[in-house]
């Protein structure tokens, strides 16, 4: 790789402000058992196993259809929520935090799922969603199927506001085992899923003002009202797109992927 730019070049190995502010006094534990891979050439400190297995060697389709127990997710989610609860003040704050935890999943799944939509390994994926409707269809079908193994139950556009769309799910998988105590009845832990949606939209360049999860029939989350009806857990994800996105949509007309 003599052609590659000098590794000394600051523009390359500068630490990422995003990922590593190594301020914590790191107590260096005893070096791990001897079988550590030899350090790679170049400026990366990372070691790799002697079989050279890295993330780049793992086929992206490998876990495409893999399954784990729903319980496994449930327990992680329990911990995510109680961990978050310890650090927040109030329900809105808690939902915000769950949303933030979901956001990266959206960013990643957007690319992962589009990558998989490619006709063949040598072809680029057909198209990426560049308009609101195709994007929402991607979310309610492709994304939903992948995560929850079924499409979302409804997709509507707010009559009141052109920038607002609603995805509804009669019983969000993430809420399957959750009963929200009365005193927090506003809370809907599917805010995590809202975060995923937000990640997808922002990632695709259709910026959102906010994506939020709401119980149908405000105010009776786990509460009395929710018992009525056959979908007590029905949740609506309210997606508010940024005005400039709507504007661009108008400028370019619906056309395009």
């Amino acid at each position, binding site marked *: 790789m003599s052609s590659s730019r000098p590794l000394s*070049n*600051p*523009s390359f190995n500068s630490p990422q*402000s*995003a*990922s590593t*502010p190594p301020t914590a006094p790191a107590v260096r534990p005893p070096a791990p058992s001897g079988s550590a891979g030899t350090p790679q050439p170049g400026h990366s400190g990372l070691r790799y196993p002697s079989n050279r297995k890295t993330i780049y060697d793992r086929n992206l389709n490998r876990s495409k259809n893999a399954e784990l127990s729903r319980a496994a997710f449930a327990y992680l989610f329990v911990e995510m929520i109680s961990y978050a609860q310890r650090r927040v003040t109030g329900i809105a704050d808690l939902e915000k935090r769950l949303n*933030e935890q979901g*956001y*990266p999943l959206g*960013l990643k799944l957007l690319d992962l799922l589009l990558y998989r939509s490619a006709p063949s390994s040598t072809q680029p994926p057909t198209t990426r969603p560049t308009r609101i409707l195709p994007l929402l269809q991607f979310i309610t079908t492709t994304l939903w199927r992948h995560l929850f193994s079924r499409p979302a139950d409804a997709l509507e556009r707010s009559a009141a506001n052109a920038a607002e769309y609603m995805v509804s799910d009669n019983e969000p998988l993430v809420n399957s085992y959750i009963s929200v105590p009365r005193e927090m009845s506003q809370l809907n832990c599917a805010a995590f899923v809202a975060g995923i949606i*937000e990640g997808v939209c*922002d990632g695709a360049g259709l*910026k959102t003002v906010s994506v939020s999860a709401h119980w149908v029939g405000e105010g009776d989350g786990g509460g009395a009202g929710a018992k009525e009806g056959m979908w007590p857990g029905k949740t609506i994800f309210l997606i508010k797109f940024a*005005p*400039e996105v709507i*504007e*661009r949509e108008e*400028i*370019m007309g619906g056309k395009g992927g």
Partner: protein
Amino acid sequence: MTSPPYGSPIKSPQLGAIESSIVFPKRKGGSPASSLSNLPYRRSNQSLSSLFASTSSLPGSGPSSGTATPTATVARDSVFSPGGTLRPRSPAGAPVVDSSGLRDVLIRSFAPHVAVLASADTDEVIRQKGFPGGFLQLIRPFGQQVQGKVTVRDSIGASKSFEDFGIRFTGLKDGLNPPKPPPQPRRSAEVGEKAVNGGAEPWVESFPAWARTGGDVAQIEELVDRHLSYAEMQYGGSMSDYLKHDGDAAGRAHTSGAPSPFYTLYFRRLLSALPMSPHETFSHPVACIIAISSRNPSPIEDLRRLYNATNTGDLRLPQWVNNEFLRYYVLVHDEDHDDISKSTALYEQMKRHFGLHCHLLRLRSLHVLPSDDDSVRLPTTEWISAMEELTEIHRRGNSETDADPTPCLFDSDVSALRTLVRELTMQSIIPSMERSLTAWNEQVLSRRRGLSGRFMSLSKRWTPFGSSSRNSSGPLAGLQASGGGTSGNYDSLQGFYRPESAEATMRKLADYAVMLRDFKLAASTYDLLRADFNGDKAWRYYAGANEMAAIATLLDAHLRSGAEKSTSTKSRLEAVDGWLETASYSYVTRCMAPFYGLRTLAVGGELLKMRGTSTGGDEAAKWGSKILEDRLVGPVGRPLFMERISASFGSKLGRGELRWGGRRRKAAFWAVLAVENWLKMDKVVQAGKMLESVSELYGLTDAGGVAVQEDEEKGGGAEKAKPRELKFAEMKDFIEELREAVVARKLAAHGYEGEESPEADETTLVEEVSEKLDARPHRMSLIGIAAPPPMAGMDVTPLSPLKVRDEEPNFRDDSFE
């Protein structure tokens, strides 16, 4: 006068760099041009600084900056009424002309040319009056704008009137190549283009015809360079307040896409004093003034003699020029010495002999001094060639006196001349042009349109019809003669159509239409011609037809509102792109005529930009960069056109909140290129200006720019399209280098000149300029302009602030690590 070895910019590498594409004649030290380069800049010399007024925009310096006495200023106004229309062409006008200004320049550049042929005695009278250039010099400025409205009937009889109509007075043989062998043997075709002779011509004649011929990019470059250097001198000392000033200038430049005064000058000179060429007739005389004076012993005979001279004699224009132009006879009456009654009698006699196209011009022959009452300074002539302006700069630069040498005349003379011009235009030129238009239009075009096939096949059919036609049957005779083989009309050996041939006639028709601003007719005609010329492989004509088809179409589209655009106009607009392409290709590659290629692309680009459609900016920029890629301009034009490209992109703001389709990054990039090239030229002031635009466009200047990099992943989403800080390390560094370079030099210039009194000793100033030319930093090149090894001259440069500056490490060596 002798010039230091490093004195001449002609020797400077940048010029060398483009010699292969444009012939930049090597002028020896003796040549007027090169001797200019070491011309001392005397800020004290009013008469000189007035010449630079068109490009000097010092804050506070008004239109009348420097120039001339109160009387002169008053005089200007008195000359060019109705008031105000003076603006677009006033050299001393606002520093920044807006784009429509460029359009005016363009439209007015296609003005009917009127040759001036004065008898010896006439010139004598005028010389005594204080005009060494004789009658031509006297009358020239008054053609620039005919006083009052000028009304023209277009092809469909609708009449339009113009406030700013003008005609161009030229010497009969202006614009023809000098007989002497071209200075540079290679590319003879190219040299044939221009009226440049090595400049070895003795410096005696005050207005040598060759100097009045434009079409030479090298000279334009040199002229603009003079203006630039002058600007550097002007602002060199006063950076602090200047910075602020050019800040807004830059702002304007990108919001309004207004060209810099230097670009405007470049553009104007590009269109000034076009050389005479077979393939276009703009500079062919539409009429010829034949003047005698009341002193003439044998007036009628002389008039005859002169007339014949233009017809058959030594003054006969080349055979490819249509000689059927209007002759206009002027009797100059000497109010101070001769008896008016005699002159009047003579005048009557003239009319009997030569018909109605006569005029009695009553002038006073006394020499006028600026101090005299009702003395008026001769207005400056706008449409002069670069060489002529250079010559003038040179002359004044050397003149001992500070007094403005511009001769003066009496108010009465002024009004007399104005009347002459108006009558000449309204009663003779326009009507005759209109007649020709109608005639050619009916007889040639209407038929030609009727059938598709070859032109000649029709020509036979016209013959009877033609001969029955009344007025000057030039074209019809031509048509008769033109009944030849397929491309019988084109003489491929000598490379032109005889003027009577149908093709030539149609071209002339179209050119007339342009001069009378009937662009619709012109466009359609050029469009028709393209096929014929293509068939005849008459490449230069072909290029010309394509060029003008595009330009006329754009002008036409420009002048009419979208509503009334006919479908034909629309379809032509779509073709414009291809036409420009073809034109520039034929000009540059087939005919090796880069000057015309440059004209095509520059004009086309500006017009496209003015259209301001969604794609206009991109297209303009595309042609702009083609100019650079084909290396049609020199080191001066390069940054100027880079600025224009930047402006073109900048003019495309994009739609909506997200600036969809905007071109800020590109605008910024080209601005950077411009800065870098300005620095190469050591034009620090210009570099400084553009640097402001760079910061503005990259959004580096916007205060309170929040840190873009939020480690919150979501943070990323919120950011707008416009970055507050350049993330590409080396871009950032490079712009930083440019900034340091500019500041360093401004300080150096400041430190050096701040102390000196305005009357700083000239020679050192000269040294500095010329030294700058060579001492430019070779290392920091964006686009690898050729930079030859330093010349011997450099090693011995005296220690000056510049020398010190060159050794600043951050600028020299950190450039690329």
